[in-house]
């Protein structure tokens, strides 16, 4: 569980089990190469002989001594002592977060949409206020002692059912005091229907927002089009700019998708920044056969290079005073989430579920329409808690491929839906996503090091 890599001119070493991150000189890096991840399989004399052509005996012994000291402190070649936390009692959580699909309809027709152009293959439908209220009651009743409850207004396009969004927020707020809950609302929107009233409401009530834009006009308008096939860049960019200008310091992300035609997605990230947006996220279209420009195995080398390229550009920008927050590189290397969260993963089908306009409850928004992941219905008052069990058992310790991976406490086992759609099982990590995730982690660690230390 020791992982090492080079970024720029720095040698990074991550001790996966303890979370310790070290930078080491070349001689230590070469010693770690010789040790091949198994500290006690090789003697100091073996290392001295192996590296005799490159370094003096004294220097090798000196560096080896330091590696041993770090090992003794529990920050290198450390053992994994967390598996005992993965008990059903610890893993089983109250439901505290809803993806509320208020509109299974969309005024756009994005080429890579996983939701079958907004209706998830279930037919166009808007959620009634009655169903939205029942969903809010459901999360209040099923959240136990957890105080912070999350509702993400999602779709389709949630602004197509904005009256229900507004009334649902009002209703949830009316319950906060009585039940000692704190609702955090988020919304994910394509921006087409944004106007001044909606902007003001969103900025007042939404804890976080996700604004969808893929970057440069020619890229965005290739994929993000109206139902009539017209590009949306010119319509949504000024609206997003207006919203963000009025938002103050509250959270938001402009979130893009990249595909084969813009593998050099750093240009799109920088374009979004130049439009005045500091908080940016960009994810690959991993749609398999469903989308002709989906990122596939053959793109991998180029994608990995581009992640590194983007990281380099963002480091330089930050060091020159251009403040940018790229979500994937935004990690806290000193603390971050607790160990239980790291081993549990995303919480889908456990503390997080999705609710459709007709009240069906699914383990997450990406599997809506998949009968096997349906857990109940809000309107009929059914919720089969037994259906949580398979999702409790998706921890890094339940997945063979994750158990011995250095990145397991950073990625937490990958996206369950992605694993299912690409590998046929929620237990089988999607290799392509794994490899991209590992690169993201390497870049994120390097990014944090450079912008915070300025070595």
């Amino acid at each position: 569980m020791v992982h090492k890599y080079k970024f720029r001119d720095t040698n990074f070493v991550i001790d996966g089990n303890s979370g310790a991150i070290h930078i080491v000189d070349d001689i230590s890096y070469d010693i770690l190469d010789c040790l091949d991840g198994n500290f006690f399989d090789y003697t100091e004399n073996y290392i001295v002989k192996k590296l005799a052509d490159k370094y003096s005996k004294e220097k090798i012994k000196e560096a080896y001594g330091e590696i041993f000291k770090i090992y003794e402190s529990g920050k290198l070649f450390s053992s994994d002592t967390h598996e005992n936390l993965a008990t059903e009692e610890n893993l089983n959580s109250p439901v505290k977060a809803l993806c509320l699909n208020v509109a299974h309809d969309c005024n756009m027709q994005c080429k890579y949409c996983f939701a079958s152009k907004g209706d998830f293959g279930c037919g166009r439908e808007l959620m009634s206020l009655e169903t939205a209220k029942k969903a809010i009651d459901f999360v209040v009743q099923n959240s136990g002692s957890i105080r912070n409850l999350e509702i993400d207004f999602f779709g389709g396009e949630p602004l197509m059912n904005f009256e229900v969004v507004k009334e649902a927020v009002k209703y949830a707020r009316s319950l906060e005091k009585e039940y000692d809950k704190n609702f955090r609302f988020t919304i994910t929107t394509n921006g087409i229907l944004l106007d001044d009233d909606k902007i003001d409401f969103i900025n007042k009530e939404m804890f976080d927002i996700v604004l969808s834009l893929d970057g440069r006009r020619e890229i965005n308008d290739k994929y993000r089009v109206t139902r009539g096939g017209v590009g949306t860049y010119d319509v949504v960019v000024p609206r997003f700019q207006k919203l963000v200008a009025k938002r103050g310091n509250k959270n938001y992300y402009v979130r893009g998708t990249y595909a084969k035609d813009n593998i050099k997605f750093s240009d799109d990230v920088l374009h979004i920044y130049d439009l005045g947006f500091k908080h940016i996220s960009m994810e690959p279209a991993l749609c398999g056969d469903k989308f002709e420009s989906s990122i596939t195995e053959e793109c991998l080398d180029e994608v990995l290079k581009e992640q590194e390229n983007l990281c380099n550009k963002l480091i330089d920008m930050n060091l020159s005073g251009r403040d940018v927050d790229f979500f994937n590189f935004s990690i806290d290397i000193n603390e971050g989430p607790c160990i239980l969260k790291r081993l549990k993963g995303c919480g889908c089908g456990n503390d997080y579920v999705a609710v459709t306009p007709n009240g069906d409850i699914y383990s997450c928004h990406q599997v809506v329409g998949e009968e096997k992941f349906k857990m109940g219905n809000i309107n009929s008052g059914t919720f089969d808690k037994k259906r949580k069990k398979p999702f409790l058992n998706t921890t890094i310790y339940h997945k063979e491929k994750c158990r011995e991976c250095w990145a397991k406490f950073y990625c937490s086992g990958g996206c369950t839906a992605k694993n299912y759609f690409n590998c046929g099982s929620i237990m089988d990590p999607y290799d392509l996503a794994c490899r991209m995730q590992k690169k993201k982690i390497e870049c994120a660690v390097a990014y944090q090091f450079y912008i915070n230390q300025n070595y």
Partner: protein
Amino acid sequence: MEHIKTINKADFKKSITGTGCGECQVSCQTASKVDNTVINQKCEKSKK
């Protein structure tokens, strides 16, 4: 030390929240929405 410098304070074994309070944001409610991004989450107890 001359050869190795530890650059962070993380120690998962001393994770301050132990078995988890569950108050922090669910990962798919944040900027990604289509991927598991647990590492990008903030601990509710450590928020300033």
